[in-house]
């Protein structure tokens, strides 16, 4: 199944794009999608441990399951204010 992936801040700089489409196994969790992204974008590896994730604009845990068409966002530590 296909999902959409959004990158922000330093993660966007690391991969060089703000958005990509990713093919993942049916029922894959966020963790699995991130592993596949790391193969494609090794520059993400140093940031991985500090990333938070959102699916369709809601924070989720790394073990959360994905559905086709979901919008997964990789969120480095935020620094607003």
């Amino acid at each position, binding site marked *: 199944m296909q999902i959409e992936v*959004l990158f*922000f801040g*330093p993660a966007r700089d690391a991969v060089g794009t703000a958005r990509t489409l990713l093919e993942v196994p049916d029922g894959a969790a966020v963790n699995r999608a991130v592993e596949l992204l790391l193969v494609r974008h090794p520059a993400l590896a140093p940031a991985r441990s500090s990333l938070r994730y*959102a699916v369709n*604009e809601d924070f989720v845990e790394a073990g959360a399951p994905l559905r086709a068409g979901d919008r997964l966002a990789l969120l*480095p530590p935020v*620094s*607003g204010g």
Partner: protein
Amino acid sequence: VIAMPELRAEPLRVAIQPDRIDLEALVREVTDPAAGAVLTFVGTVRDHKNGRRVLRIEYEVYEAMALQELRRIGAELVGRFGARRAVIVHRVGRVDPGESSVAIVLSTPHRAEGFAALRFAIETLKKDVPIWKKENFEDGEVWVQEGS
């Protein structure tokens, strides 16, 4: 006799904007005859960091999610802290030293819950709202990685 519905402004507004923040307009917006206090928190861009001159800051925002998280914070201001009206505005894009990057403005019946509400709002914003700050120095630029 048909009762007229009471006309009342929405108690909450949140915004992500590239434009400068007009604090006086926000104070007017939240001022409410039922409230005895209007409180403001304004975050501004510093012109230095660790002895280096900051030329400007660039804010990147995941807008759909940031607006949702700001509305969640605002709902707490109204529901938990009893704010009569609240506005939260954050800048996106380039912000120069001395300019405001964020403003939280609210009215409450009494001041004590207003101060508590302001602190809750800015601390939660800094922890959970998907906004990223890149500092531009004379010799390069860097994403801010810690709350600051």
